[in-house]
């Protein structure tokens, strides 16, 4: 298959965590990309949703002058940055100026020190599949290094339409935020149809590692989503269900004052999942 050379193509990377134990099996490096097509009310990192539109508001407030304007663009000096998050708090556009545009070789170079200690990498975001060509290229390089390549996705892009990425992906970790069309639209602003299609597709090609649902009592019909989603995966014993407690950390807007689920609710949901025949359940 012909592919256009990607050596100089860059993607907006928010950060790279050298070691992560929460992004798939074993120890992994996690690469986070800027930009997301969903606008979830409970988003923990709303500053990762949009690409910077260079309005310069943040440049004025940076206390250590790590932000500057070159031509029409806001530039970030990561050496100077003190990580105080003033820019993110000031941004009214759910974005961040602290982005590095990297090539796949840049990403490989950034994780070189980690390679002896990791099973592989996981790409996340934002929504990393927005950069499917870039990630496909990255994953080919990762595989050549003898490591595995996982995608953490909310399933907003039809995976059948991006075979160049899915072919080189070992497994996907997929968010199932809600199985109800109306609720999903209320929560994310988008339909859940493509997400559920992706779930079935990934199961059919044995590329699903886990599904995850954030539990928000009083706002979402958690039991319905967990019940239906766990039944969907129950025939695949290796697929894990991860239940995530809603936490207010990082959240902006309406859900900020929502209650955090207690352990008994999480236990009840876990029992429901197990009752539906899924034995691999994690609560975080």
């Amino acid at each position, binding site marked *: 298959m012909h592919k256009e050379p990607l050596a100089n193509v860059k993607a907006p990377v928010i950060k790279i*965590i*050298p070691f992560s134990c929460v992004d798939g099996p074993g*120890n992994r490096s996690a690469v986070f990309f800027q930009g997301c097509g969903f606008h979830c009310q409970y988003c923990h990192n709303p500053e990762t949703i949009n690409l910077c539109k260079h309005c310069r508001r943040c440049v004025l407030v940076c206390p250590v002058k790590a932000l500057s304007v070159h031509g029409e663009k806001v530039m970030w000096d990561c050496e100077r940055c003190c990580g105080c998050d003033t820019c993110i708090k000031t941004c009214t556009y759910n974005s961040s100026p602290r982005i590095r545009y990297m090539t796949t070789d840049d990403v490989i170079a950034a994780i070189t*020190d980690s390679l002896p*200690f990791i099973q592989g990498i996981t790409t996340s975001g934002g929504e990393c599949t927005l950069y499917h060509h870039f990630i496909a290229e990255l994953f080919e390089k990762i595989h050549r290094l003898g490591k595995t390549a996982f995608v953490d996705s909310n399933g907003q892009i039809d995976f059948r339409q991006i075979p160049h990425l899915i072919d080189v992906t070992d497994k996907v970790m997929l968010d199932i935020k809600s199985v109800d069309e109306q609720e999903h639209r209320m929560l994310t602003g988008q339909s859940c149809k493509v997400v559920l299609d992706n779930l079935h597709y990934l199961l059919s090609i044995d590329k699903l590692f886990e599904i995850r649902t954030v539990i928000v009592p009083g706002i979402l019909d958690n039991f319905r989503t967990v019940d239906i989603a766990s039944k969907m995966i129950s025939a695949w014993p290796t697929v894990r269900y991860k239940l995530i407690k809603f936490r207010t950390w990082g959240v902006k807007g309406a859900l900020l004052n929502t209650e955090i689920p207690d352990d008994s609710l999480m236990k009840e949901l876990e029992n429901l999942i197990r009752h539906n025949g899924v034995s691999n359940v994690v609560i975080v």
Partner: protein
Amino acid sequence: MQEILSIVKDPELTFNQRFIAMAKAAENMIDPIELSEDARYFVNQKVVFDMDEGKAPYRPRYVTPDYDKFMAQGSAFLMLKPPKDIWEAVSNLMILYHHVPAAGGMTVYIGHLDRLLAPFDQHEEETYRAVEMLLLHVDRTISDSFVHCDIGPYDTRVGRIILDLSAKMQRPVPNMSLIYNENTSDEFALKAIEAGLVCSKPSFVNDAMYSKDWGSRYAVASCYNVLPIGGGGYTLGRLNLMELGKLAKTKEALMEDLLPRAVKAQCEQMDKRIQFIVDDCHFFENSFLNDEGLIEKDRFVGMVGLVGLAECVNTVLDVNEREDRFGTSEVANQFAEEIVDKIYEIVAAYKPKHGRFYLHGQVGIAEDVGLTPATRIPVGEEPELPVHLAVTARLQKYFATGIGELYPFDATAKTNPQSVLDIIKGAFKMDMRYISFYSSDSDVIRVTGYLVKLSDIEKLESGKAVLESSTVLGSGAKKGLKILERRVRGFNHA
């Protein structure tokens, strides 16, 4: 007189702790070891140090008896027959523990427990009770976190019981190491990691490295001291590289003059102390362990301990900015390696009267302030974990009598113990010798090599006596070595 009175009246010491302190005070009233002028100079400069083992050493610092042999033959001196079942096995061991000498008064090695007990493991429940009794006995009588047991590399039921009990009992005693090699199943290793994340033990031993130094008959004792089984360590000297660095005006002065002299001075002090133990006190002629072949003179070695490599490098290179300092700067790391290479050469060439000398990464004592253990990177200056691991592994190659590094992991690692195993496997492939880890939310934590309960430190600091003498050291290290400020590792989600 004042010292004696303060010992016998110390409200923070139990009777046994006072008793040991009194013996030490008596020993220190004489000073029979005569040093050369140059050696005395380095002692006075606090570069060469005998670790306060006692001025008149009459026993080796560490004795690591051949417990396997003891199980097979019993002991004529102790009037014990070889055990026939798990209860006799445990009882015989508990008896022998009280007859194994050590500089601190209490043994630092209680054997390779799963290997010793596996032949007697008939019924799981009975074995569980017997092992629990043994661990309880050791914790409540030897009561010192420097006492160490080993397990592995094979997955055995006894090994699993020991791990289960360690997680359940939540006690710092005994310290524990898992001998890890290609025969250790991932399943057993993961079980050990799960235990480690709730009770800070076992640590992992890179058998590929240590078996090159010692063959298969070695023990991990005390903090992480690696010694031949059926022998031990005569004495542990400590070369304080931080103090030596202060004396050196230039790199050349250090490498060409001060370092060679100081290493020789340290070796001389150890050599003379060992001669006192062997030739003047006739330790071996005085020991039934020797008569019965549980220890042999030619399996004892001397340990040259190092501390403060980081401070030495930073002082001599006169660097203050983080990017120029040891741990981060390649120039500084390279210099550190040169220093260790040089020390190794001199120590390997030194011919003491008894045994041979090997390097040891000393972890510090409670009184140390601003002195980084062994070849470690100072707390607060740790680079990203992958770099930290690589720098650590690179500086550990010569430390045949033990060196270790420890990493507090974020509690989320408990949901994914495989992530810790991946790190250990990677580090061991880079020739790291020994890794300890604990979870940031544990009560039992590792100080520098030994374990303490944080809740016991709090008790001690409120003026109450506690069972473990090592808690007293831990309290000092908490303040002097900033142990609670170590960089917690990894594992944040974006």
